[in-house]
């Protein structure tokens, strides 16, 4: 270790870290603090923001209709996360345990759907599930149903949509964690007479639990905010917290109330990230 690593001269530090610091200060720290300030502001009769301290926005958050939507939003996020985890774990396990040559292709095929805009893909689901969509037609043709079933415009459809857009965010951290597993450990466990289930709970799961945690965080938190999924598939019957915020910044035009709603999302995020770190989660595995 040479000494001059620690004697950081100011110029190179400023030149390298200066731009990013300014950027983060101006476009992350200040805007978020400003949202916090705004959540305590009032509005005048023209819906302009007035810098006058009030707790009214937070009191309005306790509105019964809003409380219902928080619960609904958390349930939707929970089921979407569970859906991704239950389907994604075995999937990530299988694709990370194939031959090297095939692995890259299988991995890329999880990412390729990303390059078609998520809005259009969600709309594709709507076409597929619609009252006269392909699924209903197929089921009718097979005489499984007599009249079309409405699959859309309910919470289930929104859960499916959220799980669909966020599925790769569950699979990729799981894949990374499972890939690090040592194959010989599984063999040893089996040779010692452990059944599949025992091997899974005692050997596999403990070593991949970090992937489970980061996958769950990366699915749960965004599902609270993806308002367009709830719009397109839920049709207004399954709003999430994101819809409430969006409305205040578009048609409702009550920015301070929207800011207070955003503070809830920030608080939930911080809480979950803290919990994640408490469970031994590594921040770096949230990134990529």
């Amino acid at each position, binding site marked *: 270790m040479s000494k001059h690593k620690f004697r*950081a001269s100011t110029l190179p530090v400023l030149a390298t870290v200066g731009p990013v610091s300014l950027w983060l200060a101006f476009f992350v720290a200040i805007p978020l603090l400003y949202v916090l300030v705004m959540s305590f502001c009032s509005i005048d009769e023209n819906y302009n923001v007035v810098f006058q301290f009030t707790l009214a926005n937070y009191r309005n958050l306790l509105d019964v209709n809003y409380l219902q939507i928080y619960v609904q939003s958390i349930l939707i996020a929970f089921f979407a996360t569970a859906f991704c985890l239950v389907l994604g774990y075995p999937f990530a396990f299988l694709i990370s345990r194939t031959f090297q040559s095939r692995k890259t292709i299988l991995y890329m095929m999880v990412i*390729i759907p990303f390059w078609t805009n998520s809005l259009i893909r969600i709309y594709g689901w709507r076409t597929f599930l619609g009252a006269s969509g392909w699924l209903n037609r197929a089921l009718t043709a097979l005489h499984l149903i007599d009249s079309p079933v409405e699959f859309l415009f309910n919470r289930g459809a929104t859960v499916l949509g959220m799980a669909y857009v966020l599925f790769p965010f569950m699979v990729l951290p799981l894949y990374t964690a499972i890939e690090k597993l040592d194959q010989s450990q599984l063999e040893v466990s089996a040779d010692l007479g452990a059944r599949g289930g025992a091997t899974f709970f005692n050997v596999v799961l403990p070593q991949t639990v970090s992937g489970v945690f980061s996958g769950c965080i990366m699915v749960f938190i965004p599902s609270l905010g993806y308002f367009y999924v709830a719009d397109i598939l839920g049709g207004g019957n399954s709003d999430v917290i994101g819809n409430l915020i969006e409305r205040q910044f578009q048609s409702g035009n009550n920015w301070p109330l929207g800011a207070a709603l955003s503070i809830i999302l920030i608080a939930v995020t911080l809480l979950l990230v803290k919990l994640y770190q408490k469970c031994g989660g590594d921040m770096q595995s949230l990134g990529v």
Partner: protein
Amino acid sequence: MRRKKSERLRRRAGAVYCGLIYAFLFLPIVVIVVNSFNATESKPYLSWKGFTFDWYGRLLQNAALLDSFRNTLLLAAVSTILSTIIGTIAAVGMFKYRFRGKSVIDALLYIPVVIPEIVLGIALLTLFATVNIPRGMLSLVLAHVTFCIPFVIFNVRARLDGYDQSIEEASMDLGVGRLKTFFHITLPVLAPGIGGGALLAFTLSIDDVIVSYFTNGQTKTFPLKVMESIKSGVAPDVNALSTLILVFTVLLVVLTQSGLIRRLRRKR
């Protein structure tokens, strides 16, 4: 013997399972591609009315849609370049130097990654509205660079993990300047990380709906154009454009992954 048989059975079940998951992932894309050739305009394209290329022809005449797509490409290119430059030098600086406030920067970097996009969107909207930054391409670039920077930094940082600084010291001991050392020694080592970060930034920017939705003003990007049209049902030429984008990106990956480009170059 029996064990072998059950092993084969298990393997086949695994393959079927993976196939079902891929079907789930690609199903809406199949819907889009099929409908881009479907000769019906009644939405949302319930039945197959014959094969047509009409929508691809009509796409070329839809100036507003093509415009929005050009905006998306321009926005993604500019945001990728800016975030890659800022992110790369930041990652190098954070790796090499110790300074006050480093942990603050580290913490701030994770905010755009974990926070719901809508919060970043409205936070930037309120800032832009207050300090009077005109909403349009400029505000979109500022917003996109903000959520791209962390991903570039994480990618470059992963590459720096096993980086041996002594080669830089050797270079400087030989009398090469700091900047020249950076361009000739540091940068080539980091290239894969920088490339990966840039690719990720480009992908994020192109697909972004929510942050753009709050910061765009009158400028329409392709996803926003789609959002606008969704109320009346996505128009068939949007399906055509999506199909073209998909084919193009898949080709690009196949070419780069298969090493075809490298082989062609060697031939020449």
